[in-house]
């Protein structure tokens, strides 16, 4: 069964203090790995899709990387506005098309 585990559950950073969030996954053939950001009281907002090991994508202070077993979301010099819950999800070839399996997220707090 496809599974996603995110760590840490919560992370508190000082503004400018770079760090990484981890997403470990098991899937029967990876169709795609997705990162979303969720602010309190709002729906998840799409950040990145990664399709194969070695792939990297960047957007402003965020960089997502992918290996065969895990993905990292690197946050460089974070700002308070980066505070949110970051969700990782996978879609596997063993499941129905477009069926995303989500992790429980990492709650990131960036203090000024």
């Amino acid at each position: 069964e496809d599974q996603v585990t995110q760590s840490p559950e919560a992370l508190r950073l000082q503004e400018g203090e770079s760090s990484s969030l981890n997403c470990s996954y098991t899937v029967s053939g990876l169709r795609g790995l997705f990162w979303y950001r969720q602010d309190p009281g709002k729906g998840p907002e799409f950040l990145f899709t990664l399709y194969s090991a070695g792939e990297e994508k960047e957007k402003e202070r965020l960089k997502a990387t992918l290996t065969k077993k895990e993905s990292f979301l690197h946050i460089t010099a974070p700002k308070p506005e980066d505070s949110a819950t970051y969700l990782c999800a996978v879609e596997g070839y063993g499941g129905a098309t477009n069926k995303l399996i989500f992790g429980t997220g990492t709650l990131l707090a960036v203090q000024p």
Partner: protein
Amino acid sequence: DTAVSQTPKYLVTQMGNDKSIKCEQNLGHDTMYWYKQDSKKFLKIMFSYNNKELIINETVPNRFSPKSPDKAHLNLHINSLELGDSAVYFCASSQDFGLAGGGRMQFFGPGTRLTVL
């Protein structure tokens, strides 16, 4: 313009009642979804529709019945509400190029917080 919209934003009701949540997307997507997010923020897919056809139907009580009148709308009707149905329900949509595709980003609505008393 809101891409994926849901109504109502909040829904408070008594056990045993029947309620509906409506979802509309103006992105021209052909696949729509319903997700449930529990109190621990775990997001789990319930249903998906592609061009009004039910594709994903997870292990959800049959008190939950999705209905898609057209590919821009996907409503969720819940009969005989129970305390455990309290959660945030999200609608989402994606553009697919045939069912063999996949790997498509999904756009989420703002959510409907359902509280069953």
